[in-house]
């Protein structure tokens, strides 16, 4: 596709349920990032992928959060046993590595609401 695609765009879930958020990066982009953004707040780093491996998982807030990437392409962020504090917009970004221009392209985000 032309840009980074995230699905779903909106997700309302009940507390305690598991959710899966999907990110389709730009084809050929080796680097992939997940961020969380609470209302009116800045970007909170979650995890970084280089290819299919995750050299930096330091931002995952608890063991309820996990992410994987396959085929150096699609990534899924899974939140188990969701809590109300998980409500936020989850943003995915991808960028090339090893080129002069490493601009990150963001998706539109998934707005997660836990009720």
């Amino acid at each position, binding site marked *: 596709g032309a840009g980074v695609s995230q699905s779903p765009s909106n997700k309302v879930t009940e507390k305690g349920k598991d959710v899966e958020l999907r990110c389709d990066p730009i084809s050929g982009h080796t680097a992939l990032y997940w961020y969380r953004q609470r209302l009116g707040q800045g970007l909170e780093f979650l995890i970084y992928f*280089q290819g299919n491996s995750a050299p930096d998982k330091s931002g995952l807030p608890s063991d309820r959060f996990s992410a994987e990437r396959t085929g150096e392409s699609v990534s899924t962020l899974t939140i188990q046993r969701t809590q109300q504090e998980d409500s936020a917009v989850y943003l995915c970004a991808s960028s090339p590595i090893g080129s002069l221009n490493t*601009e990150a392209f963001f998706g*539109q985000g998934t707005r997660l609401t836990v009720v």
Partner: protein
Amino acid sequence: GQQVMQIPQYQHVQEGEDFTTYCNSSTTLSNIQWYKQRPGGHPVFLIQLVKSGEVKKQKRLTFQFGEAKKNSSLHITATQTTDVGTYFCAGESTGANSKLTFGKGITLSVRP
């Protein structure tokens, strides 16, 4: 690990005033990037600075990369209401496992 800091988190200016914000990295960077997020939108790339001391301009916006490649500034001349939004800097680390580290951002509001 690498940290990129933007302080303060919010700033309010009167339309027509100049605005400057700073970005500081705990480590030397290979490049620094700036992004803008409009209310309700997602961050969008503005510019990338690579060379020590580099200065780039986009209309009323002036971006500078520090001599030590550890800090950067964004200056907006004569702010307009269209400048409202959150400005993020992102530093790319050096080395084999280089990655972009985003600052928390500064949210600019402009009083008409």
